[in-house]
């Protein structure tokens, strides 16, 4: 061949997987990085407010390819206009959200180069990996399902131990009758019938979770946000891991009321705080609808702890009541901008029961540890 000649061909590339293999390694690394940063990711606004989008953008920085480079935000870059551009024209505006997230480097101005795409299911799987309902017990009313085996069908083939005698005898009688020699005699292999099984759900224990949230005036946007992100993951977690767990949403300020899930996550109220109101309501709900004999009952309450001091003793009394009927009672206190010396948490130090767990959350990264503490499956066993 002299220079400039050519060959054109088509090969079979189906075994060439290099890109896919390294892509998989990259994905693994993304997952490792996400796991390392779960505490920060769990309370990301973009996730809690993800409004039904399937793919989430999760900020992770450990997957950058670091090298010495110029500060993109301090560099001048070249661009091309449509013919009339003037000094001072705006070429691009950084999106307002995600402020303070870094210096917006990357190829395009304002692109968050370190965001990884992850589906909410994947994220949930990582978060829930070692979470579970503690102290789960067998209850009478069968609603929480687990898998079991049920014999339902009859077939001509099967294993000897599963022979369906009744059906086999019917077959023998039928065959003999058709031959004009009625009666039960002479079983042949064709007469044999076998039982076969199906996988099915067996209902054994059931659970109800009471989600209680303080929506009083002292709960600022931050406190509400923290409480909601906790409940967001809690609800998701319960629905992912358990087939039939019921969740009751209770909101309170000085008075408590039951809300829909949507109201619970979206509506804010104001006014003073009397936490006992919600404990009282919880006890009512349990008494009316969820007998402790039939249900595993869990109660979680989130508040900023700013309660009427006169109400605290009442709260302790009611919490103890709740502890009698619940598998677990959790209290989460969000330490906001104001610091109160006498908070509900201080009062709850007097509650002495292994089924009672309390956590304090100071910032966004506290949500994940709170989840881990509340839904630590082994904690009950350790306590019992």
């Amino acid at each position, binding site marked *: 061949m002299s220079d400039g000649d050519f060959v054109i061909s088509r090969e079979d590339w189906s075994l060439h997987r290099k890109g896919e293999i390294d892509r998989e*390694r990259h994905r693994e690394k993304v997952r490792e990085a996400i796991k390392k940063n779960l505490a920060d990711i769990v309370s990301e606004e973009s996730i809690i407010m993800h409004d039904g989008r399937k793919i989430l953008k999760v900020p992770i920085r450990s997957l950058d390819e670091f090298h010495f480079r110029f500060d993109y935000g301090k560099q001048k870059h070249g661009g091309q206009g449509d013919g009339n551009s003037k000094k001072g024209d705006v070429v691009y505006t950084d999106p307002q959200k995600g402020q303070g997230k870094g210096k917006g480097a990357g190829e395009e101005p304002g692109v968050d180069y370190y965001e990884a795409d992850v589906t909410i299911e994947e994220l949930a799987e990582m978060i829930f990996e070692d979470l579970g309902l503690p102290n789960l017990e067998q209850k009478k009313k069968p609603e929480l399902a687990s898998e079991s085996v049920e014999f339902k069908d009859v077939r001509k083939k099967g294993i000897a131990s599963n022979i369906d005698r009744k059906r086999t005898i019917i077959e023998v009688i039928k065959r003999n009758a058709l031959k004009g020699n009625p009666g039960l005699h002479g079983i042949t292999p064709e007469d044999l019938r076998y039982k076969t099984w199906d996988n099915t759900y067996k209902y054994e224990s059931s659970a109800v979770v009471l989600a209680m949230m303080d929506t009083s005036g002292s709960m600022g946007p931050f406190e509400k946000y923290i409480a909601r992100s906790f409940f967001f993951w809690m609800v998701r977690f319960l629905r992912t891991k358990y087939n039939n767990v019921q969740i009751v949403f209770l909101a309170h300020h000085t008075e408590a009321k039951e809300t829909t899930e949507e109201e619970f996550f979206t509506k804010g109220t104001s006014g003073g705080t009397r936490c006992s109101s919600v404990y009282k309501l919880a006890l009512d709900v349990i008494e009316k609808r969820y007998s402790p004999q039939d249900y595993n009952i869990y109660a979680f309450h989130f508040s900023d702890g700013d309660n009427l001091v006169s109400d605290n003793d009442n709260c302790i009394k009611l919490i103890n009541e709740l502890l009698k009927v619940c598998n677990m009672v959790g209290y989460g206190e969000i330490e906001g901008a104001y610091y109160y010396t006498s908070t509900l948490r201080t009062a709850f130090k007097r509650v002495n029961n292994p089924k009672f767990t309390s956590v304090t959350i100071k910032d966004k990264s506290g949500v994940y540890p709170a989840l881990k503490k509340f839904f630590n499956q082994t904690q009950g066993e350790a306590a019992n």
Partner: protein
Amino acid sequence: MNSKDELRVLEDALQVINAKAKELGLDFYDMFFEICPADIIYTFGAYGMPTRFSHWTFGKAYHKMKTQYDYNLGRIYEMVINSNPCYAFLLEGNSIIQNKLVMAHVLAHCDFFKNNAYFKNTSRNMVESMASAAERFREYEFEFGRAKVESFIDAALSIQEHIEPRLMIKRGENLRKKRQKEKERTCHAERIETPYDDLWELEEARKDTSKDSEKVKKFPIEPEKDLMLFIIQHSKELEDWQRDIMSVIRQEMHYFWPQMETKIMNEGWATYWHLRIMRDIHLDETETIEFAKMHSGIIQTSRTRINPYTLGLKIFEDVEKRWDNPTPEERERYGRSGGEGKQKIFEIRANENDISFLRNYLTKELIEEMDLYLYKKVGNEWKVDEKDWEKVRDGLVSSMTNGGYPYITVQDGDYNKNGELYLKHHYEGTELDVYYIEKTIPYLHSLWGHTIHLETVLDNKSVLFSFNGEKSSKKFI
């Protein structure tokens, strides 16, 4: 059309395009065209070469390209590899007319690779050497563990841009010359002799003395730009397999470097020629429309970046026009006689790189016609900051200096008489990304084994970043 028929049609088309390209003066290596599915093209795009070693960063790049393709946000139509013979990959599923355009485009790329001065010393059998390096890396994984090899590659890649491209060219040249001499002394040298060769020899002589007197106080004697090489040669930390990995990465960077510094020219050249060739061959009406669509997609401009295809094309076309029809002044002052357009652009493609290309041929008229500008960040907004043509031109040129990477040299390999490494960023008005400095220095530490210092400038003050293996610190000096 079944794939066999398609292949035949493409072969016929290529026959025509090939003949036309040669007739118009393009000069390329033998071409291997291969039609392959999207993931394969994207693999090549991400790795820069079908046979390169494995690493998650390529997986990341692949993922990004593949996703953009899957969501129809962008696509690569072709890949060309600078090798002899030249490999070009066509995207399966391209229409015939798309592939015709791509083939014309690709022939011009190959002409560029073969004839541009900056590619003179690139290895033309990189396909094979990358394959064998990849094989060795795989063996290292077996021997030393995948995680260990992977994190070493992470570290090596973090400084891969810090090489001295010109040095390599010269060294490669000398090596080849030596080999040639050893062989027979009959063949003529591959490189054309120039009156300036003695200058190179001076450089070489200096290098040699520096090696002989390594015991001299200063180390290195002169600041060294090739940080990769410096570490390969002088780090006491590295094992043989690690030195090998670094050498491979450095060599591959040398191979890719000329492509980075001639991006605008090379894409402009290829675009220029696919236009000319496609205009010259017969297209029916639908083909013409489809061709026009694809071409306009290629040269689409953006407010936030310079499209190298468009800029390169415009400059080549402008030069051709100006050398074909010089103004009376140009005739008199530069002795241009007119009608020299073709000759001139071929000359440019042989001798220039992007920096000299823009510096010499991006005119005031072109900048104004194309409405080029510089923009920068002001608060949350990115605003047009510069419209003055000289400043725009100079800004574009300076952003390409050293491949667009910070210029860093090794000042001292035995700083504090303690084996510490002292690096200096040669500040030219743009600050480094501090977060990235702090994340990169630990990689360097793992390669060098002792404390690393980097001197740079922040807010017009000299700053020294240091990392001693445990803590990083920053102080004004």
